């Protein structure tokens, strides 16, 4: 399955091994891990809670993976996104792409992250010393996603 939404943590090494699965056509594996930072918009963050839209989230992610496959010459792609309550240094999201060549693997991986940021229904709420707040969407993320269109 190319897409997983889960509360459990993930093991990047094991996921890369599983995705490669001994396929000797693969010459390039690009991956990205998004991690909870202890600081956001200048405030200390002690906890991050991810809400999502069950059903639509998986559907949106699968559509984004299908787009990446049609745009770039990749063999496979994996997206894992966690939901629930996380702490600083916890892993949030993993994207892996495999290809014969590095350019396609890198572009597909970055595309997946950019599209996921603006097109998949997740919402972050963070705990700061001043209380809990919803994280605002960033114009820079919209701009990053527009690069690909």
């Amino acid at each position, binding site marked *: 399955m190319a897409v997983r939404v889960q509360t459990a943590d993930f093991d990047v090494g094991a996921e890369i091994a599983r995705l490669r699965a001994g396929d000797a056509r693969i010459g390039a594996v690009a991956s990205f891990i998004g991690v909870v930072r202890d600081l956001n918009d200048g405030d200390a963050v002690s906890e991050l809670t991810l809400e999502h839209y069950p059903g*639509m989230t998986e559907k949106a992610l699968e559509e984004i993976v299908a787009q990446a496959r049609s745009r770039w010459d990749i063999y496979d792609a994996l997206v894992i996104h966690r939901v629930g309550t996380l702490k600083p240094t916890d892993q949030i999201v993993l994207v892996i792409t495999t290809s014969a060549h590095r350019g396609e693997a890198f572009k597909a991986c970055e595309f997946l*992250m950019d599209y996921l*940021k*603006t097109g998949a*229904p997740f*919402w972050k709420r963070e705990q700061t010393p001043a209380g809990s707040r919803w994280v605002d*969407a960033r114009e820079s993320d919209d701009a990053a996603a527009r690069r690909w269109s």
Partner: protein
Amino acid sequence: MKPGETQAAVVRILYFARLREALDRSEEELVLPEGVGDVGSLLTFLRERGGAWANELAPGKAVRAAVNQDMSDAQATIKGGDEIAFFPPVTGG
């Protein structure tokens, strides 16, 4: 149902994140009022509930919508049986 009767068009509406909290509601079932056939007119209808509804769904507020789990704009048509969701811009990743 007898001939001549019209079947009520019921939609399911979901609210997420900041909207869910402000409206104090995660979902509801709604009989589509006469003349409400797209996302934009549904928003107008909900806004008329006043209070938090008027504030949170005010024109200019960043509200996103999905119809049957596809991102949709105000022109997207809706009909009985549809699942419609309203939420703030997404912030995953």
